[in-house]
């Protein structure tokens, strides 16, 4: 039997230029993390298999490698092409345990576990915590959140949708654990925004 000459689809869709492509995506994420709540436009050429979004794939390909474990939510973990794509393009091991994940990729925010279920780090090593990448649909509509903290001059308003359930209370509990806690990268089509654990969130009135 002749082997197929058509490459498997999971081999495709990575960075055309991993060096400068990864650098550009990282600078977007760094700027978004340094100025929480700002929406940073992101440009890249990644084409991951559905249902993983392109922005989430770009973040994973930029930050993940064999040294970082990835936790996938049920919709992503159930898709063999997504798992294979991440394996080929990042080499990162997939872990079923949220509390041991360096990165967590959340495709379905409505079904995500509580923030407290992920790795929180320790008081001595707060960096040993999970960074959550959430596939959001919008960074310009949704619940208006009033942000304050490092990276924010006075206050800043962030809207995103969909929002995890009971988010205001969950985020307050995450902040109460400081310096432990998780950091969020919100991956929208064509843009990212970040909520590091140092950011305080209040729901805007009205």
């Amino acid at each position, binding site marked *: 039997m002749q082997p197929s000459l058509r490459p498997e689809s999971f081999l495709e869709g990575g960075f055309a230029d991993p060096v400068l492509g990864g650098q550009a995506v990282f*600078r977007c994420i760094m700027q978004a993390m*340094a100025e929480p709540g700002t929406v940073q436009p992101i440009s890249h050429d990644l084409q991951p298999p559905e249902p993983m979004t392109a922005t989430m794939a770009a973040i994973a390909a930029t930050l993940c*490698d064999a040294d970082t474990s990835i936790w996938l939510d049920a919709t992503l973990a159930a898709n063999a092409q997504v798992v294979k794509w991440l394996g080929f393009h990042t080499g990162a091991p997939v872990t079923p345990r949220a509390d041991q994940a360096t990165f967590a990729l959340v495709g379905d925010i409505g079904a995500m576990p509580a923030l407290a279920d992920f790795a929180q780090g*320790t008081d*001595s090593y707060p*960096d040993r915590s999970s960074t959550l990448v959430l596939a959001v649909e919008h960074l310009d509509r949704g619940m208006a959140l009033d942000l304050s903290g*490092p990276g924010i*001059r006075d206050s800043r308003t962030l809207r995103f949708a969909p929002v995890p359930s009971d988010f205001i209370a969950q985020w307050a509990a995450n902040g109460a654990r400081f310096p432990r806690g998780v950091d969020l990268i919100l991956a929208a089509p064509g843009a990212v925004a970040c909520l590091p654990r*140092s950011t305080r969130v209040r729901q805007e009135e009205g």
Partner: protein
Amino acid sequence: MNTEARAFDWAEAPAIATYNFAYLDEQSKRMIRRAILKGIAVPGYQVPFASREMPMPYGWGTGGVQVTASIIGPDDTLKVIDQGADDTTNAISIRKFFQRTTGVRTTTATTEASIIQTRHRIPETPLTAGQVLVYQVPIPEPLRFLEPRETETRTMHALEEYGVMHVKLYEDIARHGHIATTYAYPVMVQGRYVTDPSPTPKFDNPKMDQCPALQLFGAGREMRIYAIPPWTEVTSLDFEDHPFAVQAFDRPCALCGADDVFLDEVIMDDQGGRMFVCSDTDHCNGRQQAGHAGEQET
């Protein structure tokens, strides 16, 4: 095809073709990038990282170089300063290193730079939003000279147990009548972590508070990265009856006449002749071009 061996022409080469962009391999950059993001998320906390060998000795800024190499891109404009000066050995060698390995534009003008790598000064010209200041840090642990054991200092940070630092500052007052620490003056970042501002003169400490630029710190030998995001509260430790104060100079810069800057003492001859000039060469040149003049004796 010409198969003759040809000597590598450094003058012609815009970058070292055989090395990756910015010298570091991609896996090292990813590791450093992850540490930078954690550092930004926990301002002032020292993130351990697997510091790499760089083609320069420890003490020459390998930590800062690794941070710069991990964030720099082709669109960046790089400025490198050593004690405020663009034209001293360390600044020139690091600037050339990145010119060769990345081909990015370099500048001496603070206002034109997107990344400023610094050894022991913060530019006099106020930094702006979007700029990144990368510090070269020799000893990142502010408590190290008070407690040599890493296991202990790590626990002290975890428990916010900083009494020993206040005792040190108090002993300064008991001995000298004032807080005699003049460089690497400890700061409190966002009310949580006591942090070493790297051995900058304490004159620069107020510039760190509510700075619009992102400040990243790299310590290569000690394998630590930490960060202060823009618009973050940075306070210098002090006492109510001995408030923090910066150095004051009794004369202006001899070249540009500035009286609100940090000055270097320059020995002019072996007869005791001396001159006090701006440590920030870009700021001083800019002022001289704008027509300001000091009382330089010729």
